[in-house]
C-alpha cells in the first residue's frame, strides 16, 4: 500500500549526470561500472605483471638466490590467480559492461543494481586475496591449488585464496545472469539475434560458460574450506576422501575458463578486423555456430589436464578426442578472420595492429595446444615450460593482444579522447617482440627438460640461454605495455577529441556521442541490418545516420543511485574475514550487514529520476 503510493510520486527531474566520488560508490550505470571494472582490472594486471617480472628475475640464471622458494611460490600462485581471476575475466567484463548494452541498442542492462553488485563482489574478493600478503602470507599452492598440498601442507594464505575466489565466483555468476537476461530481452527493435555483433555473442557465451562452470568450482572451494577449518575429509585420502576429486572439480571450471577468457577476445577481433578491413565479417553465421560449438565442447575436455594422473587408456583417449575436436570450430574461426582480411583495405591503426598481431600468435598457441592434446606426447610435455610457453601464447598473444586492440579501439568512445597512434605503434611492436622473446624460448627449455613451477634449476640442465632470453624478453614486454599506459594517461590529459565515430565504424556504439551520455541513446535506434550503422552508411535509402524506433521524448527515466550493492559486498567481505579468523562475532556482523542490504533492496522502491538529455544533436 505504502509502496504503491510512493511509486505514484513523480521522480525528480535532473539536468546533469552523476558527479563526484560518492556517485562512483552508488552508481548503477553500466558504463561507469564498466569503467570501474576497467581501472580495477588494470591495477591487478599491473600487479600480476610485476609478479611475473619478479619470477623471471629469479629465473634469469641457474641457482639464483634473488627470491627464496617461499616467496617464489607465493608470487607464482598470486601471479596465476591474479591474471586469470582478477585481471583478464574482469577486463572482459569491463568492455562487456560498457559496450554490450549500447551495441544492442539498450539504455541499460536488465538489472542495474545486480550489475553494481557484481563489481563490488569482485573488488571484495580481490581485496581478500591481496590482503593475504599482510595477514600471514599469500597462498602458495599454485593457481590450481591441488590438494593435499593446499590442505594440510600449506599455510594460512590458502584460506584467502578460497574465500577470495568464492566472492569473485559469485560476482561472475551475478553478472552472467544479468548479461544473459539483457541480451535476450533488451535488444532494440530490429536487433534480431542473428544481427547481433559477434562481440555480443561473445558476452552471451562468456556468461553461459561462467554460469555453468563457476558453481562446481564454488562447491569445490567450500569443501576445501570445510576440510581446512572444520576438520572434514572430503579430499583427505586417510579419511576416505579423494585427492583427485579436487582436480576434476577444478578443471571442470578450469577448462571452460580458458574459453571464458578467449571468447571475449574473439568477439573483439571479430569487431576490429571488419572495421579496419572495411569489410563485413566473412561468414557471420558460421562464426556464431563455431562459437557455440566451442563453448559446448569446452565442458567435455577437462581431463586433458590430467593425462598423467593414471586415469587409464580409455579415459585418456576419450579426452584426447574431445580436445582435438575443439580445433575444428576454432580453426573455422581462424579462417573466418583470414577471409575477412582477404580483399579488404586494411588500415593499420594501433587497434588493428594488435588485432592482426593476435592472429599468428593465437594460431601458434593453438597448434602447440594440439600437441599437448596428444596424450602420449603430453606425458612428456605436461608440467614443463613448454606448457607455460603454450598457454601464454593464448593468454597474452591471444587474449591480452585482443584486449589491447579493444582498448585502442574503444577507449576514445569511453573517454572522448583519442590515443596517440605513434606511441601506440611503438607499444605494439615492442610488446610483440618482447612477447615472442619471452615465450618462444620457453617451448625449447620445456622440450629440453625444464619443469614449470620451479624456483631454481641446475646449470647442468643446459637451459640457461633460454631462460636468459625469456627474462630479457619479459622486461621488453613490460616496457611495451608501459608505453600503452603512458599513452592512456597522455590521452586523458591532452588527447585529441574523438567525436562520435572516429574509425568510420559499423556498430551502434559509434552512433552515440563520446563519452556516451548516461542514457546511451536519446532515441532508441531502429536496426535495419547486421552492423547497424554500416548498413545505414551503405544503404541507398539511408543518409548514414541511424533512424529512431520512436519519437524523441523529453526527459529520460534513469534508475536511482544506491549504496546497497556496495554494502552487500562489504557485508560478505566482513563475513569472510570472520570465517577466515574463526571469529564468530565478525562473521555474524558480516551476515547482519549482508541481510540488512538484502532486505532494504527488497522493500525499497526505486523511483529513479528523470534526466534531461544533453543539448547536442545525434
Amino acid at each position, binding site marked *: 500500500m505504502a509502496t504503491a503510493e510512493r511509486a505514484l510520486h513523480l521522480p525528480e527531474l535532473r539536468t546533469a549526470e552523476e558527479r563526484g566520488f560518492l556517485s562512483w560508490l552508488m552508481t548503477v550505470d553500466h558504463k561507469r561500472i564498466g569503467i570501474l571494472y576497467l581501472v580495477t582490472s588494470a591495477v591487478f594486471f599491473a600487479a600480476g605483471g610485476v609478479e611475473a617480472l619478479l619470477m623471471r628475475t629469479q629465473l634469469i640464471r641457474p641457482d639464483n638466490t634473488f627470491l627464496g*622458494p*617461499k616467496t617464489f611460490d607465493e608470487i607464482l600462485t598470486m601471479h596465476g590467480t591474479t591474471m586469470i581471476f582478477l585481471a583478464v575475466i574482469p577486463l572482459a567484463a569491463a568492455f562487456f559492461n560498457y559496450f554490450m548494452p549500447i551495441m544492442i541498442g539498450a539504455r541499460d542492462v536488465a538489472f542495474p543494481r545486480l550489475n553494481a553488485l557484481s563489481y563490488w563482489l569482485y573488488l571484495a574478493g580481490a581485496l581478500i586475496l591481496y590482503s593475504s600478503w599482510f595477514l600471514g602470507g599469500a597462498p602458495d*599452492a599454485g593457481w590450481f591449488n*591441488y590438494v*593435499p*598440498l593446499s590442505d594440510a*601442507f600449506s599455510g594460512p594464505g590458502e584460506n584467502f585464496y578460497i574465500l577470495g575466489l568464492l566472492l569473485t565466483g559469485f560476482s561472475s555468476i551475478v553478472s552472467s545472469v544479468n548479461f544473459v537476461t539483457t541480451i535476450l530481452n533488451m535488444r532494440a527493435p530490429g536487433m534480431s539475434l542473428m544481427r547481433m555483433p559477434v562481440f555480443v555473442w561473445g558476452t552471451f557465451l562468456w556468461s553461459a560458460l561462467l554460469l555453468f562452470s563457476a558453481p562446481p568450482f564454488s562447491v569445490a572451494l567450500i569443501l576445501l574450506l570445510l576440510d581446512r577449518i572444520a576438520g572434514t575429509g572430503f579430499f583427505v*585420502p586417510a579419511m576416505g576422501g579423494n*585427492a583427485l576429486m579436487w582436480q576434476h572439480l577444478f578443471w571442470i571450471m578450469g577448462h571452460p575458463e580458458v574459453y571464458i577468457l578467449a571468447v571475449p577476445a574473439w568477439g573483439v577481433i571479430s569487431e576490429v578486423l571488419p572495421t579496419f578491413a*572495411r569489410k563485413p565479417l*566473412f*561468414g557471420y*553465421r*558460421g562464426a556464431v555456430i563455431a562459437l557455440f560449438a566451442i563453448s559446448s565442447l569446452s565442458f567435455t575436455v577437462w581431463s586433458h589436464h590430467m593425462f*598423467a*594422473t*593414471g586415469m587409464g*587408456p580409455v579415459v*585418456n*583417449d576419450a579426452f*584426447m578426442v574431445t580436445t*582435438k*575436436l575443439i580445433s*575444428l570450430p576454432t*580453426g*573455422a574461426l*581462424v579462417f573466418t578472420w*583470414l*577471409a575477412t*582480411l*582477404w580483399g579488404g*583495405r*586494411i588500415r*593499420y591503426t594501433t587497434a588493428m595492429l594488435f588485432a592482426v598481431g593476435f592472429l599468428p600468435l593465437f*594460431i*601458434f598457441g593453438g*597448434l*602447440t595446444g594440439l*600437441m599437448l592434446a*596428444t*596424450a*602420449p*606426447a603430453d*606425458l*612428456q610435455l605436461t608440467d614443463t615450460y613448454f606448457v607455460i610457453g603454450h598457454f601464454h601464447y593464448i593468454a597474452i598473444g591471444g587474449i591480452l593482444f585482443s584486449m589491447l586492440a579493444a582498448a585502442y579501439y574503444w577507449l576514445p568512445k569511453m573517454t572522448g579522447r583519442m590515443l596517440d597512434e605513434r606511441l601506440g605503434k611503438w607499444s605494439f611492436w615492442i610488446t610483440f617482440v618482447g612477447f615472442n622473446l619471452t615465450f618462444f*624460448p620457453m*617451448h625449447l627449455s620445456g*622440450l*629440453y*627438460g625444464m*619443469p614449470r613451477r*620451479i*624456483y*631454481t*634449476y641446475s646449470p*647442468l*640442465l*643446459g637451459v640457461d640461454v633460454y631462460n636468459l*632470453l625469456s627474462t630479457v624478453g619479459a622486461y621488453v614486454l613490460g616496457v611495451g605495455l608501459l608505453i600503452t599506459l603512458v599513452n592512456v594517461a597522455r590521452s586523458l590529459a591532452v588527447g585529441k577529441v574523438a567525436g562520435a565515430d572516429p574509425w568510420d565504424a559499423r556498430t551502434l556504439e559509434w552512433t552515440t556521442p563520446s563519452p556516451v551520455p548516461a542514457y546511451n541513446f536519446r532515441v532508441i535506434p531502429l536496426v535495419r541490418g547486421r552492423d547497424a550503422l554500416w548498413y545505414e552508411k*551503405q544503404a541507398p535509402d539511408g543518409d548514414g545516420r541511424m533512424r529512431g524506433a520512436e519519437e524523441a521524448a523529453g526527459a529520460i527515466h534513469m534508475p536511482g543511485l544506491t549504496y546497497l550493492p556496495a554494502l552487500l559486498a562489504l557485508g560478505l567481505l566482513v563475513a569472510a574475514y570472520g570465517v577466515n579468523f574463526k571469529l564468530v562475532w565478525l562473521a555474524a556482523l558480516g551476515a547482519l550487514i549482508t541481510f540488512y542490504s538484502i532486505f532494504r533492496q527488497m522493500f525499497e522502491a526505486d523511483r529513479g529520476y528523470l534526466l534531461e538529455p544533453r543539448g547536442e544533436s545525434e
Partner: protein
Amino acid sequence: MAGRGRHRKVALVPLALAASALLLGGCGTYPQSDFNAVGPISRLQRAALVEDMRFLGVIGIIVIGLVVYAAIRFRHRPGEEETPAQVEGNPRLELAWWVVIALGLIFLVVPPLRDEFVLAQTPQGPGVVHVKVIGHQWWWEFQYPDYNFVTANELHIPVGAKIDLQVTSADVIHSFWVPNIAGTLDAIPGRINTEWFQADRPGVYWGQCKEFCGLNHANMRLRVVAESPADFQKWVDSHQHPVGVAGLTGDALAGWQLFDGAAGCKNCHTIDGTDAKGIIGPNLTGIGSRLGVAAMTLVPNDAQNLSTWLHDPQAVKPGNDMVIPIKLSDQQIRQLIAFLQTQKTYESPQVKAALQNPLAQ
C-alpha cells in the same frame, strides 16, 4: 659424453624454424631432453611428439603464411579511397574449410589412440623387475619387493628388462618423470598408479618431480642408472650384503658414533647392516656410491657437497624435514663424511663415470 642428449635438430625444424638456428647452435647437452629416447616408451612418446610437430608445423607455416600475406597484400595504400567489395561470406568456401579441418583432424586423432594402450600394459614374465616408487616432500623412495631392500633418489635397473612401476606418495601429489626413458606419472597419496618402461642402453638418466609439491619442488630430482644385467645383479647383491660398520676405524668410526648417537641421524635414516632404522628420511644404504646429495640437489656426491649439506640442510633445501639436533663442528662434519663415504655399494662403469662427471652417460 658422446651422444648424451644430442638434440634431434630434425625434430625441431618445423617448430623452431629460424630461431632454432640461433638458439641451438653450439649449445650444450640436455640431460633431461624429451628427444633423447633410450627405451620403447620414450621412443613411442617421442614419435607422437615429433609426428605432431611435423604435421602441425606444416599447417602452421601455411596458415600463418596466409595471414601474413593477407595482412600485407591487402593493406590500404594511399589514394585507394573506394570501399572494397562487401563480401558477407561464401557458404561453399566455409563448408570447405570445415571439411578440410575435419579431414586433417583424422590424421591427428587416430594414430596416438593406440599408444595409450601400449603404455597401460602390465609386463609379465620372469625378467620383469618390480619397483615401488614413493614420493616424499622432497625426495624419492624406491622399494624393490623382489629383492627386499629400499633405496632413495637413485633407481637402478637392468638394461633390456621391463620395469613394472607402482607409483604413490606419502604426502602430497608428486610426479615421476625420467624423460629419456618415460614420460610423467603422478604419485598420488591414497592411490597406486602403474606404468612400465625399459632402457635399451646403459647410462645415467635424469629425472625430476614434475607436479608442484611445495617449497622444494625444484629440488626433488632423481637419477635412473641403467646397467648391464650382470652389473645390476652385483648392485643388488651389494645391497643385500651391505658393508655395515664392523671394522671401521679413525674418522669413519667417529663418524659412525656420531651418526648412531649425538648427531641423531639414525632417528630418521636407515642404513642396512647397522642399527640405524629411522624411516623419516631417505634410506642411506650405499650413500657413498650415490650420485648426488639431497635428491640430487647437490651434485656430484663429494666431500664438499656433503659438507655443504651437513652444515645447514635448511639453507640448501628450506623447509625439509632434516633437522640436526646439535650444532656440528667442522671436525664432526669431517668425521660424518668419512663415515658416509665408507657406505658403498657396487659401482658399475656408469656409476663410476657419473661420479667423476655428473653429465657423463
